[in-house]
């Protein structure tokens, strides 16, 4: 841009001045931040004045003036001049200062060296001012002495005014954004749900928790009402409470239940009106707090109180001076006093005369934070009895850990003997259970190892009988598998007391029956037990039975045990056989699975062999069938030819046609048989692993073979570089031959053009044969590979419809695939087949 050398109040400078200011304004309105404003100021200054360099400096919070943007100033210069100002921050009525020659200016004496090193000879200071006074300045620099014209100065001042205003605006904007961000951050970090709505009920602000709670994005709700996002009834409820707040102008607190994934949550929601600076209502703010946990806690403490209240033990609390603060029903029962009678009274009222010192001792322990456990002592009741109690006293602390008092649990252990007995019985029961578990463990390994069902049943019956001390043991298979009972006569009649019929039997444990003496059972007394139980012919009195139920719930059978003495079996024996039955069920499941898998494997082997044999039979059949078909055919063909030759001329026209059709039919039949035989051969696996063959050489051989038809049709067959692959040469030749001869056969009017290519990828070599022939309707893409599948009339395109079937057989033998890659009606087709690059 050319610079006007001598600015004056000419039309040209006026235009330039206006243009500069207009551009500046346009830039400033688009400024995103303060840096953009500063940059615009510099650009504008350099455009509007003759100065070569310019800068903008702004006071920081400490009153130090710093460079914010500049053109053409070195770092040393900026560093040296930082903090230098003709006016302190906030000076009012500051005016521009023009220094036409720095060498003549006294105030710049100390900076003379810096200025000369920077090549600055003249400069202008233009203050940037706001209501609060100077907040910075614009600088213009000149290399030679320079008298700034009035216009230049005025323009620079005009720029300064715009920049000042823009800076002010931008600062206010930033402050506003910051405070908004701060507000959002505070809201977002609050655990409460916050939303602000305007008078029309449109959301203005919501926080993270709100987004989480209602599973809605901030962007999707801002500017929209509750009616837009919630179901009508919910939205209506919210709107009503909002309206109440707006109408009354007073805060409102409500409890609301909301369904969450983990159940119903209770919220305490506070709504209050929002007012603008002028006191008018601007909207409503809602803050909701999840008080579900607090509610739960209330319930828990109510629950705990109920537990305390219902405890048989006396639960008493006292403060540190030993005064009773709480007293439960248990305490009432043990000591005889009601709560009203004792609360607030000293605990020592329960003491026995000769043990008065005990209580202060306990209290001093509690004060030290120690617990008193199972302390046995004597106490006095309301009616003057002395009872023996076991005490557990522990300190009660407040949230800060300070000891407030003690809680005491007292148990009346007067009937000590009884308690001891109870303990002993518990112990023996525990030992019994342990013994059962050990026994079960011991047999389980034996059971799991046994895979033969019959042996397994035997082991189970024997072991279980030994364990429960039975004289007789039996396993009865479920009627469905008809194997009969093991160890008892098979003719045991139905209608047995089956373990699964729990109805009105004495032992109401599901799956188990136990009779103290089966001969005394009312149900079986009327009929001799000998016909009613699997132990029928045995002198059984004690009787124990259990079902063996598989994982799937099927009843595999029942285990029975008997003894000639009544009452031999106990609950303990019930537990043992229940355990054994469970183990046995697992083992039997395994054994059955094993049997099934053995059978399935044998079946698979057999059907494989059958398939192989069937395939061989089929091959042999196809081979000899083609052989035998060929013989009469030869006779027909040659006989017809002989007939034609010897008396063709004497035949009527119609007869000649008959003869021709015999010849045609036999020719076609010959071709068909040839193809069928080729197909049979292709089905047969080639002998030995496939050698590596050069596909290119094979193709050359095939083309030589097809030379006749290629020349006849004027076909061109081209080929890309073909790799060496593992395949039997004759098979590859067959593939090429069939595909290429198809490509030539199914041609359009123009000469066929065939291209053979190969592409190796991921362990496969894919060969493609493309042509420009008649194409194939894609709906037949699968069908064409079927045996005897033809898409055209025989007269149109001869053939037996076996070629592609042969190709498919061949590639499948190598684990490959053949498919119609591309086909355009009248635009040719591409067949591809894949062969693994490594022999399989």
């Amino acid at each position: 841009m050319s610079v006007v050398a001598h600015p004056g109040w000419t039309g040209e400078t006026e235009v330039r001045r206006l243009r500069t200011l207009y551009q500046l304004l346009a830039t400033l309105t688009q400024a995103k931040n303060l840096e953009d404003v500063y940059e615009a100021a510099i650009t504008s200054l350099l455009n509007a004045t003759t100065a070569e360099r310019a800068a903008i400096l702004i006071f920081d919070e400490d009153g130090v003036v710093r460079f914010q943007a500049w053109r053409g100033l070195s770092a040393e210069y900026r560093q040296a001049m930082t903090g230098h100002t003709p006016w302190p921050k906030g000076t009012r009525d500051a005016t521009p200062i023009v220094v036409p020659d720095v060498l003549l200016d006294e105030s710049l004496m100390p900076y003379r060296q810096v200025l000369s090193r920077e090549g600055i000879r003249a400069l202008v200071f233009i203050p940037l001012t706001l209501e609060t006074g100077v907040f910075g300045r614009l600088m213009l620099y000149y290399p030679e002495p320079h008298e700034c014209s009035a216009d230049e100065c005025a323009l620079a001042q005009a720029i300064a005014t715009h920049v000042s205003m823009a800076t002010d605006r931008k600062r206010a904007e930033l402050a506003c954004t910051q405070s908004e961000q701060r507000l959002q951050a505070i809201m977002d970090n609050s655990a409460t749900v916050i939303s602000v709505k305007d008078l029309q009920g449109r959301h203005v602000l919501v926080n993270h928790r709100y987004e989480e709670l209602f599973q809605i994005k901030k962007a999707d709700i801002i500017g929209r009402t509750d009616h837009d996002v919630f179901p009508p009834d919910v939205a209506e409820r919210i709107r009503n409470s909002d309206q109440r707040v707006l109408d009354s102008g007073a805060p409102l607190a409500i409890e609301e239940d909301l369904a969450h994934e983990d159940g119903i949550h209770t919220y305490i929601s506070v709504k209050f009106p929002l007012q603008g600076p002028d006191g008018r209502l601007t909207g409503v703010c809602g803050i909701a707090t999840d008080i579900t946990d607090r509610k739960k806690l209330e319930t828990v403490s109510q629950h705990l109180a109920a537990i305390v209240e219902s405890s048989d033990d006396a639960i008493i609390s006292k403060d540190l001076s030993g005064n009773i603060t709480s007293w439960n029903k248990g305490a009432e029962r043990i000591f005889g006093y009601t709560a009203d009678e004792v609360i607030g009274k000293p605990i020592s009222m329960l003491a026995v005369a000769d043990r008065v010192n005990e209580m202060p001792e306990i209290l001093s322990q509690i004060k030290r934070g120690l617990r008193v456990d199972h302390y046995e002592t004597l106490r006095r009741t309301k009616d003057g009895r002395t009872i023996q109690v076991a005490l557990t006293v522990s300190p009660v602390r407040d949230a800060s850990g300070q000891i407030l008092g003690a809680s005491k649990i007292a148990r009346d252990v007067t009937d000590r003997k009884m308690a001891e007995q109870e303990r002993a019985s518990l112990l023996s029961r525990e030992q019994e259970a342990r013994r059962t578990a050990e026994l079960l463990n011991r047999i389980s390994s034996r059971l799991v190892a046994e895979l033969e069902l019959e042996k397994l049943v035997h082991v189970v019956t024997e072991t279980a009988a030994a364990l429960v001390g039975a004289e007789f043991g039996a396993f009865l298979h479920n009627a469905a598998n008809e194997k009969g009972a093991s160890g008892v006569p098979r003719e045991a009649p139905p209608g047995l007391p089956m373990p699964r019929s729990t109805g009105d039997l004495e032992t109401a444990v599901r799956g188990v029956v136990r009779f103290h003496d089966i001969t005394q059972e009312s149900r079986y007394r009327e009929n001799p037990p000998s016909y009613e139980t699997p132990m029928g012919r045995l002198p059984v009195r004690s009787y124990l039975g259990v079902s063996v139920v598989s994982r799937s719930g099927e009843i595999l059978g029942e285990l029975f045990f008997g003894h000639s003495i009544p009452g031999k079996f106990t609950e303990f024996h019930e537990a043992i056989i229940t355990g054994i039955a469970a183990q046995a069920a697992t083992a039997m499941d395994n054994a059955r699975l094993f049997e099934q898998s053995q059978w399935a494997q044998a079946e698979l082997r057999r059907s494989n062999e059958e398939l192989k044999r069937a395939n061989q039979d089929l091959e042999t059949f196809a081979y000899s069938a083609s052989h035998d078909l060929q013989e009469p055919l030869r006779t027909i063909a040659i006989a017809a030819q002989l007939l034609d030759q010897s008396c063709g001329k004497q035949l009527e026209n119609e007869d000649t046609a008959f003869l021709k059709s015999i010849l045609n039919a036999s020719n076609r039949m010959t071709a068909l048989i040839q193809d069928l035989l080729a197909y049979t051969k292709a089905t047969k696996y080639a002998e030995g692993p496939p050698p590596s063959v050069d596909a290119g050489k094979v193709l050359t051989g095939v083309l030589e073979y097809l030379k006749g038809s290629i020349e006849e049709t004027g076909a061109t067959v081209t080929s890309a570089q073909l790799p060496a692959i593992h395949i039997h040469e004759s098979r590859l030749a067959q593939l090429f031959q069939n595909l290429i001869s198809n490509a030539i056969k199914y041609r359009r009017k123009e000469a066929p053009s065939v291209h053979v290519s190969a592409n190796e990828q991921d362990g496969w070599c894919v060969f493609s044969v493309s042509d420009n022939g008649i194409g194939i309707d894609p709906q037949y893409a699968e069908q064409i590979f079927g045996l005897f599948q033809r898409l055209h009339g025989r007269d149109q395109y001869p053939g037996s419809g076996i070629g592609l079937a042969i190709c498919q057989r061949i590639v499948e033998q190598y684990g490959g695939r053949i498919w119609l890659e591309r086909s355009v009606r009248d635009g040719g087709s591409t067949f591809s087949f894949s062969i693994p690059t490594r022999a399989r």
Partner: protein
Amino acid sequence: MSRPKILVIDDSSADVELLRLALDRQREEYELEVLQDGAEALQFVREHRAGTRAPEPCVIVLDLHLPMHDGMEVLKAVRLEPALTHIQVVVLSSFLNEEKKTAVERAGAVYRIKPVTLPELLDLAAEILALCKQALTV
């Protein structure tokens, strides 16, 4: 010169008849002996070995697909019999089988596909007679 004797070993009488027809068309003297299966053919070889049979044929036309013992077995027996080693054998097959062809040619015999057209059949008959003549002149 005695009439050339041609031995045909083939179970297909139709094929034999066609061959006879084609030979007749050559307008040359010949004598045709026909054996119907592999067993008869092996019997023929045995009799030659024992010297109980004469004269020898000048050419044997052998179908590969024979009942009882197949053509390959018969060919092997003929080739192993010193009295017959010099006789030309033409092996006929319904279909081309490269492996068999190689084996037959290695045994010094001629391998031909059974003709399905009249010209082919006539060519074969001519070839057989030519081989016969060749054997007699040697």
